[in-house]
């Protein structure tokens, strides 16, 4: 049955979107900004993993850790240098700065590593297992499993740890959190660190699935994941998870059953329909205005 294998492939792609979307949504929830450079962090992560695997011949887990470490530091650095001075600035100024950072990363990568794409080594076994009549690659299963683990860890972190509850407090009301003695700047840095770390995980999965690494590879997955975050209700962690999975499934089904070329149009079309029915996304909070 084709349907089942499309569904699982959709879940696989959706898992990648979900992991990226989690980064978007956490940063939005806490810093209230659309971090357009998030997609480019993915690209950096992919390059780091690529060089760790090829040039330094590190084992796969170490390569992933290297990518996570570099992306986490990069995320925090970007936040400190570019976004923190704009805490009080209008949101459009922050958006443009994020775009500037995105250009910077893309062009920096192009200078350092040239614009031609590099083939990502296939480290994860290319084999597949059959589920009924559908065959599913190990990579897809690993992607889905990673996403589930990430989601569980993140939920536990947010709900069970002191830092997690401080994060929730910050996303509700930064001013009040500061009065309660929460170091808001620290919380924002941690949020960027986690978001960027997740982007690094996503980058390895993405680069393994489509085995090529190039300077603009992060843009489209970035936009899609951003869409997924809005889809689920931006600022909501379960929303990003569900939004990412749904987006992946819709994209694969649209490609399989309708048209490969028009699949993007269909994905964005569904987003518009969802937002018309639920103007703040699937799990987004309703905004109340006091008159």
């Amino acid at each position: 049955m084709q349907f089942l294998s499309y569904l699982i492939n959709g879940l696989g792609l959706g898992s990648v979107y979900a992991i990226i979307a989690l980064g978007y949504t956490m940063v939005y929830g806490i810093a209230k900004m659309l971090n357009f450079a998030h997609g480019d962090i993915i690209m950096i992560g992919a390059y780091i993993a690529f060089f760790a695997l090829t040039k330094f011949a590190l084992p796969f887990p170490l390569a992933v850790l290297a990518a996570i470490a570099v992306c986490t530091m990069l995320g925090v650095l970007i936040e400190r240098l570019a976004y923190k001075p704009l805490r009080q600035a209008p949101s459009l100024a922050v958006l443009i700065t994020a775009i500037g950072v995105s250009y910077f990363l893309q062009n920096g990568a192009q200078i350092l590593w040239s614009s031609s794409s590099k083939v990502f080594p296939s480290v994860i076994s290319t084999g597949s297992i059959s589920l009924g009549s559908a065959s599913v690659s190990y990579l897809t299963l690993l992607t889905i499993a990673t996403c589930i683990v990430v989601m569980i860890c993140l939920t536990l972190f947010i709900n069970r740890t002191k830092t997690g509850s401080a994060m929730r407090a910050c996303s509700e009301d930064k001013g009040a959190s500061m009065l309660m003695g929460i170091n808001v700047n620290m919380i924002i840095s941690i949020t960027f660190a986690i978001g960027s770390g997740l982007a690094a995980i996503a980058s390895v999965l993405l680069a393994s699935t489509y085995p090529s690494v190039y300077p603009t590879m992060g843009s489209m997955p970035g936009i899609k994941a951003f869409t997924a975050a809005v889809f689920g209700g931006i600022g909501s962690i379960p929303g990003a998870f569900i939004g990412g999975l749904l987006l992946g499934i819709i994209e694969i089904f649209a490609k399989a059953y309708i048209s490969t070329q028009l699949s993007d149009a269909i994905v964005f079309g569904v987003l518009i329909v969802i937002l018309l029915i639920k103007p703040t996304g699937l799990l987004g909070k309703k905004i109340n205005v006091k008159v």
Partner: protein
Amino acid sequence: MKEKSSVFSRFGDKKNRGRLMSFALVIIAYIAVEVLLKTGSLGSMFSSLLVPITCYVVAAIGLNLNVGISGELNLGQAGFMSVGAFCGICVSGILAGSITAGIPRLIIAIICGAVLAAVFGFLIGIPVLKLQGDYLAIVTLAFGQIIKSIFMNAYIGIDTEGLHFSFVESNFKLQPGGKMLLNGPMGATGTQKIANFTIGTVLVIVALLVVYNLMFSRSGRAIMAARDNRIAAESVGIPISRTKMLAFVTSAALAGAAGALYGLNYSTLVPNKFDFNTSILILVYVVLGGLGNMTGTIISTVVLILLPELLRSLQDYRMLIYAVVLILIMLVTNNEWLMTKWKSLFSGKAKGGA
């Protein structure tokens, strides 16, 4: 409700002076360029950028009406440009036999591009303007993507039997001697280049007239009132969605006109030209120029298009420098301490309250 006051503070009360200044700027720039062209002292690189600059200026003026005056973030302006561009190319292609003179055909194409983009703007505006804030922005982004992928898959041609249209390449057949207008991902090829800088300048002036005349009128006040305080605007009888729609559609129409001019400036044009990055680029012109500030928009558009060309000697590093300049401008202009210093420098007085 979070008021977006600080963003718009650059829109001051010296409106008449600003209005005159922008017209003067355009006319002086036009004369200067024409003189340089006549004396042959303008390099081919710069003269080839003249028409694109006027196109982006018009699209950015339109976007500023939407983002600065109406206060709604639009991430899909390039989508409207592409509607205008391909509509203009098709119209020009269809009329090529009946109207041989370039200028009238160009003007008709621009008008058609503007009208079709306005129609798209209206249809898109119905769902978009039901949303608010970042949700509205993402839907404009989505529409930009949808428009792009539609053009990537559109096949339009004309032959003796009339106009043909299809979304599937294999279904698309033309009679011998027929002319392909749009060829899917290849876009438009073999377009007759009829755009010129004079028409571009006229279009910029028309765009300025439209936006200023709208701004300083009943409708413009309503648009700004709806931006500043939605609830209060409704309480004085201003219908919010209709008002926002007016700004959105006008902005789309200007982008459409700009697109038509752009499309007719090149012999080939691919749909990918008008992607998300182009929308963002236009948004950057608007934000750097100052929200609601049309003169600033013109200047920032020209500077930012020329900047990468001026940095050409730096080769690979030019886009990197461009990015750094972008970030630094944002950091500096939003730094209160620096801006107070800057202002007191100009007023020539001791530092007073901002």
